[in-house]
């Protein structure tokens, strides 16, 4: 491993070898990825699936991983011994055990809400308990051969399960399935819809009245891939604006001109990435809103970091959580 791709940052090689080994970048076990759904009794077969890609599940492990990477920097040797339980492997295991069940539960809660929201909106869907990560990162890192392999594995799994439509929970995976998969697998023709768009359509049909239990001022952080690659900017706004008791405020840099939270370079250049998060958190806080809503697990976790570093009083919430509350309080 040491001699391969010496100019690809070691951190990326770690993530890609994890994907090859365990199906997701952080090497989480399948049981950890599927834990959120354990008591929901979701069908495991169906033409439409809710796809999480293990992304929300890994979010709470990102911070300890990055802390280890900060110490390791660009040293190659530690990575080469990772699989043999080298220093980094041990460091990582230690760091991972520091992730409290409370932290990982926080993201599992969001996932449960995502499913419950769909149920409430009358949408039928299944969840593949053994689902694999889309591999999007491999494409972004330029590891095209690895990406193609992973994409084929994922596509085969979808085919075997009879999937025809994917409700993609993160912009990251929606973009991968919609725009990148067809370039590598010419027969890949599944319908791919970002979660927020599925919700928008269902709300349109059902005419539900949404409300929050008490007044909340909220600004919106458009995730880059959602706003620019997928061109989804108005759906979340329309929904949020329809929620009673919610005061939606725009940041100066919004919609297709949204500013990146910095998460994409977190594993390679963590300190730099955190300065970017701090700056975006400051921009969001400048709206004077109580909270900022986003629609991507990586933005969510990284902006939380940014808010802490900026010393701002701004809650970062996921669209799924806001919708969940609004559906609870609202009525048909």
């Amino acid at each position, binding site marked *: 491993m040491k001699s*391969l*791709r*010496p*100019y*690809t*940052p070691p951190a*990326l090689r770690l993530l890609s070898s994890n994907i090859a080994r365990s199906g997701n970048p952080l090497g989480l076990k399948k049981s950890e990825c599927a834990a959120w759904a354990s008591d929901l009794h979701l069908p495991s077969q169906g033409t439409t699936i809710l796809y999480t890609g293990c992304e929300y599940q890994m979010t709470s492990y990102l911070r300890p991983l990055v802390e280890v990477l900060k110490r390791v*920097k*660009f*040293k*190659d040797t530690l990575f080469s011994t990772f699989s043999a339980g080298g220093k980094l492997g041990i460091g990582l295991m230690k760091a991972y055990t520091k992730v409290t069940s409370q932290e990982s539960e926080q993201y599992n809660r969001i996932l449960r809400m995502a499913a419950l929201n769909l149920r409430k909106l009358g949408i039928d869907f299944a969840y593949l308990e053994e689902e694999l990560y889309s591999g999007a990162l491999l*494409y*972004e*890192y*330029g*590891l*095209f051969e690895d990406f193609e392999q992973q994409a084929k594995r994922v596509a085969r799994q979808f085919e075997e399960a009879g999937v025809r439509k994917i409700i993609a929970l993160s912009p990251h995976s929606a973009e991968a399935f919609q725009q990148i998969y067809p370039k590598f697998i010419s027969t890949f023709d599944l319908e791919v819809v970002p979660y927020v768009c599925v919700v928008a359509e269902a709300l349109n049909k059902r005419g539900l009245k949404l409300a929050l239990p008490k007044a909340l001022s909220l600004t919106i952080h458009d995730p*880059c*891939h959602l706003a*620019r*690659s997928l061109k989804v900017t108005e759906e979340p706004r329309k929904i949020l604006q329809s929620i009673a008791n919610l005061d939606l405020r725009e940041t100066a840099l919004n919609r*297709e*001109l*949204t*500013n*990146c939270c*910095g998460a*994409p*370079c977190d594993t*390679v*250049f963590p*300190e*730099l990435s955190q*300065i*970017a998060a701090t*700056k*975006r958190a400051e921009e969001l806080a400048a709206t004077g809103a109580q909270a900022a809503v986003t629609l991507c697990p990586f933005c969510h976790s990284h902006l939380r970091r940014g808010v802490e570093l900026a010393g701002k009083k701004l809650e970062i919430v996921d669209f799924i959580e806001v919708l969940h509350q609004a559906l609870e309080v609202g009525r048909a």
Partner: protein
Amino acid sequence: MPDAKQLFEQYYDALLRSAQDPDMALGLFRSVSAYRERKARALERFPHTVELAEEVRKLKRECLGRLDELVEKASASLKENGAQVYYASKAQDALKIIGQIVGSGKVVLSGKTLTGEELGLRQYLEGLSNEFWETDIAQFIQQLREEKPMHYVYPSLHVTREEVAKLLSKLLGREIPPDIPTEVRAIREFLRGKYFQADFGISGGNVVAADTGTIFLLESEGNIRMLTNVSPVHIALVGIEKVVPTIEDAFKVAEVTWRYAGFSVPLYVSLISGPSGTADIENTLVHGSSGPVELHVIFLDNGRSELAKDPILKEALTCIKCGSCLFECPIYQIAAGYYGGHAYFGGVGAILTAHVGGSLVEAAPIAYTCLKCGRCTELCPQQIDLSQLIPELRRRIANAAKSK
């Protein structure tokens, strides 16, 4: 081959040091805010620019397929106008040509040439015992700071007025206060003394018309106009991707460039097609009247013709260097030109660093810094789609290394 660990560490150390420097943060913040206002005003006053940019986009893409033909035509036109024309395949060739023209012990003035940065021209000519001065105020500051440029249009955008005052006080041996008009006046006086001593004036070229051989030079300071006029010999160093078919095309490229660089109107646009000449005595043409006696034009390839053939990455060569992407990049706003190679910055800069005058290895840390967030593409007059280009560049970095 440098060690990967060393390469990333050196790059990241420099980047972080600057990112954590409060003076630089202040300089960047002031510059970005001012740029946004200026560009908004410029586009409001000249709203047709957006459509014009689309036209230029098509034009520049078309030109990439016929660079050889265009350069040949431009060369013929320039020769016809009395200029001496050279084609430099590699950086070393260009330096050698310029070294032979200039010799040593001369006074050389330069006006913002990115190709000069690409070659390390100042260092080279100083090495031949020439006195070399940058005349663009930002580059002049950068020369005094002995650092690399930070931006195409505003190379010293990260330097505060306080820092400039310190540099000038040291250079001039008297106290210069941190007051921008006073600082500009002091630099003006210093450079005015140099213009009439100059043996050579070196410029780049924002765009070149093949049909007339006309080199377009955009500026506001008047330094380029001075040095290309007062110096007895004018040397223009131009990347081959700058050539467009007609002078009408060139005007379009020029207008889009200055507008997206944040200028409503550039105070000066010089159009230079040959050395000065007169036929006023017996209608007999003689070169060298009031302007330069000689014009030397060097077309620089240095990887460009190869890149122009690349099915994916060639798009980077349509960059007109307005620098709009840099101002609007979340990483550039933190790290300025440290997010870049020795001459080219940001995501597009990663591709140029890899294929034009640099190497895949030098480009590696830059390529992995790009967030691939796509904000630059939204604001780029050429719509250079980094979300496609960056993964492809990273693929090459991974694979090139693999075969070593």
